[in-house]
């Protein structure tokens, strides 16, 4: 434990950006958890008289075309966006790692079928595939989560397959087999725990991508519907205002989205330095 902490301290000291990203991550999670208590105004209440107020005064980050407080909407959106990202990544993790374990451990037909399946998904530009899935399943937040999860499954499955495959005949697996453990027990109790560090890195990296993807879908009008605040829809609502100079309507949500994705990407790199030092860049 103390050694792990020392390693963290070393990584952060060597790369202050990781420390900054970790602070940012804590901030995002806190905001998401305590969102209802942090909002100065209601995120949905419209104040026609105060439409398009620039930042400052009663509205710290200004108001949009309907006079809604942008800061409050950003705080409410943080909770929604993080929830979408986290649930999509969790689903992709469970199904992707599950498929990868089976393909890597059993090989043969299972491997070929799963490999063909992931290859086929990867034959699409991923964002376009997500658009198609949401279009077919229906335009709801749940389907945004599903679509984002599905396009991430191949990444997890491939990585888990390779990592399982190299461990399949390792000494400790042979020992577990010899002492009469069931296959399921070997897979879940002996191989899976060894995959977790490397998969954790992947999780952090895909979390940023998942949020970006969901925001992109919302930006083109899929998924989260107005007036529900979400970073992508907020940028889209601000797109017309920016042409007449009211930059704050689109810039603050866009900047928040950028920071969130940035934070997860940097954390992923930092996590890799700690958990998987072989792949340091």
């Amino acid at each position, binding site marked *: 434990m103390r050694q792990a902490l020392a390693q963290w301290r070393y990584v952060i000291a060597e790369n202050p950006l990781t420390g900054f990203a970790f602070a940012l991550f804590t901030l995002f999670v806190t905001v998401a958890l305590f969102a209802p208590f942090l909002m100065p105004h209601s995120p949905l209440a419209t104040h026609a008289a105060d439409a398009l107020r620039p930042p400052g005064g009663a509205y710290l980050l200004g108001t949009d075309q309907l006079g809604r407080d942008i800061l409050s909407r950003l705080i409410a959106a943080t909770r929604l966006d993080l929830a979408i990202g986290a649930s999509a990544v969790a689903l992709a993790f469970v199904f992707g790692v599950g498929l990868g374990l089976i393909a890597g451990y059993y090989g043969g037909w299972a491997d070929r079928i799963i490999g063909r399946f992931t290859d*086929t998904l990867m034959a699409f*530009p991923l964002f376009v*595939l997500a658009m198609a899935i949401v279009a077919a*399943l229906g335009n709801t937040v749940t389907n945004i989560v599903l679509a984002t999860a599905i396009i991430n499954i191949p990444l997890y499955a491939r990585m888990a397959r390779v990592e399982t495959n190299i461990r399949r005949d390792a000494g400790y697996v042979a020992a577990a087999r010899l002492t009469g453990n069931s296959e399921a027990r070997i897979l879940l109790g002996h191989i899976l725990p060894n995959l977790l560090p490397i998969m954790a890195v992947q999780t952090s990296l895909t979390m940023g991508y998942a949020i970006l993807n969901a925001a992109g879908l919302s930006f083109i009008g899929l998924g989260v519907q107005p007036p529900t605040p979400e970073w992508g829809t907020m940028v889209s609502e601000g797109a017309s205002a920016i042409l007449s100079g009211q930059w704050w309507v689109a810039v603050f949500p866009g900047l928040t989205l950028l920071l969130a994705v940035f934070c997860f990407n940097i954390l992923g790199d930092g996590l890799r330095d700690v958990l998987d030092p072989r792949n340091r860049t």
Partner: protein
Amino acid sequence: MLRIIVSRLGTAIPSVIGVVIVTFLITHALPGDPAAYFAGPNPTLESIAEIRQQLGLDRSWPLQFTSYVSDLVHGHLGSSLSTGQPVLQELLSRLPASMELTLAGLTIALAIAIPLGVMAATRPGSWIDHLCRILSTTGVSVPPFFTGLLLIYIFYYLLGWAPAPFGRLDIYASTPPTITGFYTIDALLAGDGETFRAALGQLVLPAFSLGVFSLAPLARMTRASMLAALSSDFVRTAKANGLSSRTVVMKYALRNAILPVVTTLGMVFSFLLGANVLVEKVFAWPGIGSYAIDALIASDYAPVQGFVLCMAILYIALNLVLDIIYSVLDPRFGLAA
């Protein structure tokens, strides 16, 4: 050479089959009801049932699949409900706009990423190395639609340098005679400098938004593989033989380091084609992406289906071209098999 191309074409066929199956499954087997989409915004039960019969949705899956495939083979992608135009025709007429934008974005990404990666690798620890690292971590984090809006605000609203961000050419400008479908190239071929500048002016900001988003993996990979190449034995030998550092870097190291970069391009295309849709919306670019968005909003199903298929085929084709480029760049590739 020809044999390599043919064998590469062979490997692309399973991908195309897979894509056709997935598109079929998405449109026919998922819980969503295409008949309800086709019936428009206010469907009655009868109209849905009628459309279901028209579309053949009351038949068994294998039957539906065979008729779907035979339609595809004959180039029938259905017709758009809102415009009444055949989808294939509309996609083909809009494809050059998307391709011009995507390729311009790729060119910008390559033009920034490769020199940056090479300079970062030759001077590790210098400011340019840090710049490379910052760009390759922030680049992928910036949503392309946000970059687009920021660029519009700065270069159109504040500075007034860029033209209004609506489409490929000003509505009053005359379009160049169609040869390639790329306005910039067509204008050059027609010797029309004014149209060329106008088309280029419209193209710069959206292409830049795409380029920034996709340059990160390229810069990262160029730097990493250049570092590896520069520390290899053949570079040491070349240096020891007294070749100029320029020759060593450009001819010996870069030629070898560029191969992994070409491989990365496959992933970059996935990024580019997806981001293309978003950027097209921001700049009202009349490509296949904005066509698909309009159709999605109107619940117009056939164009969406055609768009997805078109994008997937395009992606497979681009990867095929990459494979061929790779085998040209690296003569060892494909001979062992």
